[in-house]
């Protein structure tokens, strides 16, 4: 498996002098299997450059398997700008979760962002053959790759993807916040059964999350915040901080972790400084700092 990062920024694209080194595009990850299976995880604005790159090195892969972690803007906004969608003969399979709102299917959400008020070309005018499939927790095959999904903890239905090829495994979490007990606010657990009840579910859900990461060679994980930002200021916003990521890395015996979905306000210099903090903390915990990478546009990883 060869993995390339085309977008590493969370929330909103932030091009400019402060983000030239790590990149300002929103999430898009290219995964190519040993037999040429072609997968893209999320189509944030990074998908624009990826599409252009694919056109420059024909033939275009087909089918393209597009797996969406969730349908927030920063994860789908590159789709109308993804050039292979305009090429006849190319097939794009779009799969991802939908929220329980107005009974819309995945196709409806993609149609909506290409309505004429927002974009000059409608979804149905795209020349490629595009299929849509709404996913929940499942497992499916893409050639020799096995893709397994699991719900993450985010403000909308969000799926993480675990991709296995023979004895190699990578996981992409999409957006994920540590499960936490919303009922702990100074109340005495003995007086409030809600606290204990929710706490037990937090434990079970966390355990399940860890088993999803378990033993992976590579985990690309949401790490929008620093420990000083989360949980104090950013709880309920749906993202993780690097201290949690390091803990999970150890608990789930993950070989290499790539921290991504950088906060849009985090400049290149700030990311450099954060890297030093992370590597120092990793070393203190007995984790090889070289195995904790800060995502950067253009980063390539081979499994």
């Amino acid at each position: 498996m060869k993995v390339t990062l085309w977008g590493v920024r969370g929330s909103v694209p932030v091009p400019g002098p402060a983000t030239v080194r790590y990149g300002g595009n929103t999430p898009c990850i290219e995964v190519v299997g040993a037999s040429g299976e072609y997968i893209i995880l999320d189509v944030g604005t990074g998908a624009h450059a990826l599409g252009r790159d694919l056109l420059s090195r024909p033939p275009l892969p087909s089918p393209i398997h597009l797996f969406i972690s969730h349908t927030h803007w920063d994860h789908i906004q590159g789709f109308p700008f993804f050039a292979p969608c305009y090429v006849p003969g190319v097939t794009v399979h779009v799969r991802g979760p939908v929220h329980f709102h107005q009974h819309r299917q995945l196709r409806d959400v993609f149609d909506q962002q290409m309505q004429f008020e927002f974009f000059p070309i409608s979804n149905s005018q795209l020349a490629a053959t595009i299929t849509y499939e709404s996913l929940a927790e499942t497992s499916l095959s893409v050639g020799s790759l096995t893709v397994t999904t699991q719900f993450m903890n985010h403000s909308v239905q969000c799926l993480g993807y675990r991709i296995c090829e023979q004895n190699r495994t990578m996981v992409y979490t999409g957006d994920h916040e540590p499960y936490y007990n919303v009922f702990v606010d100074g109340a005495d657990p003995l007086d409030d059964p809600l606290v204990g009840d929710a706490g037990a579910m937090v434990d079970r859900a966390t355990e399940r999350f860890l088993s999803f990461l378990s033993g992976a060679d590579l985990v690309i994980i949401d790490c929008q915040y620093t420990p000083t930002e989360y949980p104090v200021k950013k709880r309920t916003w749906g993202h993780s901080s690097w201290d949690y990521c390091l803990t999970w890395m150890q608990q789930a015996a993950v070989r290499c972790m790539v921290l991504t979905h950088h906060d849009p306000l985090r400049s290149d210099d700030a990311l450099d400084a954060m890297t030093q903090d992370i590597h120092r903390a990793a070393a203190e915990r007995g984790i090889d700092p070289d195995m904790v990478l800060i995502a950067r546009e253009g980063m390539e990883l081979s499994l």
Partner: protein
Amino acid sequence: MNNTTVSYQTALPSDIQAAAHDIPSVSPLLGKIHRMSQEMETSPRDMVKIIMLDPTLTAQVLRLVNSSFYGLAQRVSSLAQAVVLLGMNTVKNIAVSTALLNTMSLLERCSPLRPESFWRHCLGTALACKTLGTGQETAELLFVAGMLHDIGKILFIRLDPDRYGKAIRESRLFGVCLYFAEQALFGCTHMQAGAFLAHAWNFDAPLIEAIEHHHATGSRSAPYVAVANNFCKESSIGDSGNIVVEEHAASVALQLGLRDKLTQQLAASITDEIMQAAAFLCQPQEHSRL
């Protein structure tokens, strides 16, 4: 309890009184839950505790949370657990929609009225009431009063749908308000029957009064319901069976200073909100991969 309501317990025909015992109750928390959906500051604890006050609603929420739509691999057995896994907004959204749709289940045998059109009329009136009463302490009550103002019609329909169909046809033929035909064919009006039902469900006196007087100028909440009811008819939002727009509603709106609020924009926003709620009427479509 309000004195005018007491009289209906004796005056109502016995077959109407008997039919009232067969009708499942609407959640008394409808108003509280709907208000909660409009507020940003409700704490997770308060939200869960409000929903838990209604065991039927709690069970319905959990059934949906555990349905194939969410495809959760782990079973969720409490609201607290659901909040951890799905988040507060999702759980709140499910509870509000479910509580509203429970009113729909009352209408299953609603011929000769089309159940969905009737439900749209009720929800439309509720939303109009809420908007007209914005800023008032009784806004929560107004929403429920709007939702349930025509509940008496359910009694008639359950008792004898054919006779109620005749009432609708005759009122249209003669161009009179439906309640005149109800009085002639059932021996009482839907306002009286509704007030009786609300009393049987132990609703508060102001709510009973609003149901009872929603076609009169009345006092307190009733005039708001009258104005909202007519506004929905004029704006073609749903169908109550009664097509007559009552002239006195316009003067009531003027007296209450509500006329400027009765705009096309209000009708559009109500229609939009009904569409969102109506989406929950359909069963979730099964995913191909669960």
